[in-house]
């Protein structure tokens, strides 16, 4: 394993009163060093569960049913949680959680919150941790004095910068960003995206960028992985997935649903609703909503077919 991260046949199910919900259901992919991979999907696609699995932060009712996760070559799902936290959390892999900017501790100075992992995980002396936190605050484009501010004194964009500073304070190699801009105005979103790009380059980060927004994905991603109903339906370079290349019908329709500022196209929609992952439809999980559905799609689940160089799609249209 020379990559930053590799996932093999991962299955993560939630226990619910309706039975097992298969949030992530047979997902395999790898992330090269220095690569940015966007994981794109709508609610219930499994993209956030995937992120939480990688950093071993799943809620109590979720369990990893099968699969392996290699970080820098070492399998990490089999490590004890204590071991994982001590050796990997924050220092090798860290995550900017969805909505984290609204989950900052309201009674702690933001600087102390940034310094916290250094003190608890790294046994860094307090003044050293404070200095490092101030450095990070500056790095995300805020004045050092912001160390002493409380979350309510900051705007949403500033809080998001703080959360990003926090995720990078222990110099991780892999960063997972889960919808880091979804609660922000488009003008602030642009600022945060530019910051993220700068930081990726500066720290040579390998990035997993989780988003529902293909346009936003195109800002960051070298490759795009489209998820639907807990599975990968398409994976390929940003050029191929967003461009003219053959693609999965779901990706095609998702792209067509984006309202454009220019051109004459009217945005389309995908009729129906995402599958119930407690009892997913047989065959291809997208078949009830697919405009190109035929017999085989209803009966048999398609594998990921190669549709181009480094480009796969889980669709019978592209198979034998």
């Amino acid at each position, binding site marked *: 394993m020379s990559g930053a991260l590799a996932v093999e046949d991962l299955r993560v199910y939630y226990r619910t009163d309706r039975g097992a919900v298969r949030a992530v259901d047979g997902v395999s992919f790898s992330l090269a060093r220095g690569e940015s991979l966007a994981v794109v999907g709508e609610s219930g696609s499994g993209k956030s569960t995937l992120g939480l699995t990688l950093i071993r932060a799943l809620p109590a009712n979720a369990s990893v049913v099968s699969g392996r996760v290699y970080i820098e070559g070492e399998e990490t799902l089999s490590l004890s949680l204590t071991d994982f936290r001590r050796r990997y959390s924050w220092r090798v892999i860290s995550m900017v959680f969805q909505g984290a900017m609204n989950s900052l501790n309201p009674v702690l100075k933001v600087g102390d919150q940034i310094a916290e992992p250094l003190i608890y995980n790294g046994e860094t002396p307090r003044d050293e941790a404070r200095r490092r936190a101030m450095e990070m605050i500056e790095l995300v484009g805020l004045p050092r004095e912001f160390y002493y501010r409380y979350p309510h004194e900051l*705007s949403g964009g500033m809080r998001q910068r703080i959360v990003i500073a926090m995720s990078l304070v222990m110099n991780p190699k892999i960063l997972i960003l889960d919808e880091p801009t979804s609660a922000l105005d488009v003008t602030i979103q*642009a600022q945060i995206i530019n910051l993220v790009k700068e930081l990726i380059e500066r720290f040579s980060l390998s990035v997993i960028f989780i988003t529902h927004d293909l*346009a936003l994905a195109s800002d960051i991603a070298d490759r795009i992985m489209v998820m639907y109903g807990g599975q990968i339906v398409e994976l390929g370079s940003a050029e191929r997935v967003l461009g003219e290349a053959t693609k999965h019908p779901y990706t095609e329709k998702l792209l067509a649903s984006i309202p454009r500022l220019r051109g004459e196209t009217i945005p389309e929609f995908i009729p129906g609703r995402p599958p119930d992952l407690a009892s997913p439809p047989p065959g291809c999980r997208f078949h009830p909503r697919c405009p190109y559905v035929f017999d085989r799609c209803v009966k048999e689940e398609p594998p990921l077919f190669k549709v181009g160089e480094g480009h796969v799609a889980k669709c019978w249209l592209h198979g034998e």
Partner: protein
Amino acid sequence: MEEVIRLEGVKKYYEVRSGLLGSKILKALDGVTLSIRKKETVAVVGESGCGKSTLGRVSLRLLDVTDGRVFFKGQDISMMREEELRAKSFRKKMQIIFQDPYSSLNPFMRIGDIVAEPLEIHGYRREEIREAVYRALEDVKLVPPEEFVNRYPHELSGGQRQRVNIARALVLGPEYIVADEPVSMIDASSRAEILLLLKSIRDSREMGVLYITHDIATARYVSERVAVMYLGEIAETGLTTSVLKTPIHPYTILLLNSVPEPDPANRRRRRPVIKGEPPSPLNPPSGCKFHTRCPVAIERCRIEKPALTEYLPGHFVACHRAEEIMRGALSVT
């Protein structure tokens, strides 16, 4: 077409306590004039805190105005007492659709009862209620209605729930609807469905719609006219086609530029940004409120507030440099 809503120089100020004894004035709306006709949608676009939601609520008289006037079908309702608003059926004729389809539906009520509730409050008879509920559900394409009336909100997708919200707003036969970010919490693949639905219902029921959004790209598909707001004022307004094709106000130009399109080339360039964040409405800048973030601001902008002026037919801009920008003598980006 007949005018449904008209706002004239509407101001909405709040007194905000600051310090021990002092107080400050927050100008949420500072002189907004706007009208909406039957079968017309006006989109109000702006960042959070620009006053767009306040505008929607003031237009419905859910909030009282501080100054200025609100007319519903030609009648001044800005000072009208609640009893009179009800007696004249104005309350029924003006409705709102909220942003969040998850928290705006009572989880313990069936869809049929949720949609029927406004009718029950207004004392309709059972047969009338059933008919109006079924018609509303059909209008929002929750069909067949008999299949949906007995379901609970958790059994529906976000898009379907938002359609329940729309149906609930429709049952009383409104002539004016405020749609406050109706699709921002809905999956991308369902957004267009809701927006197109709103448009067709607007036409079939001959309503006027105020569409409040932060997403200027969606405004293009649903609205005939658009108003871009910044810190409680209209910066630019006109036909949607004109404003999107020929934006003149620097704020509109930059706002349009910051909307990402799915293009792999994006990752090799920086997103164009508007520097800084919107200033606090408690302490708004002098002159043109946008001058602190405007790349082409001059001394005059700091001192003198620009008036909304017509630069193209029906297309108004509040900017001292609008003429130069329109001529192409000045580039904002």
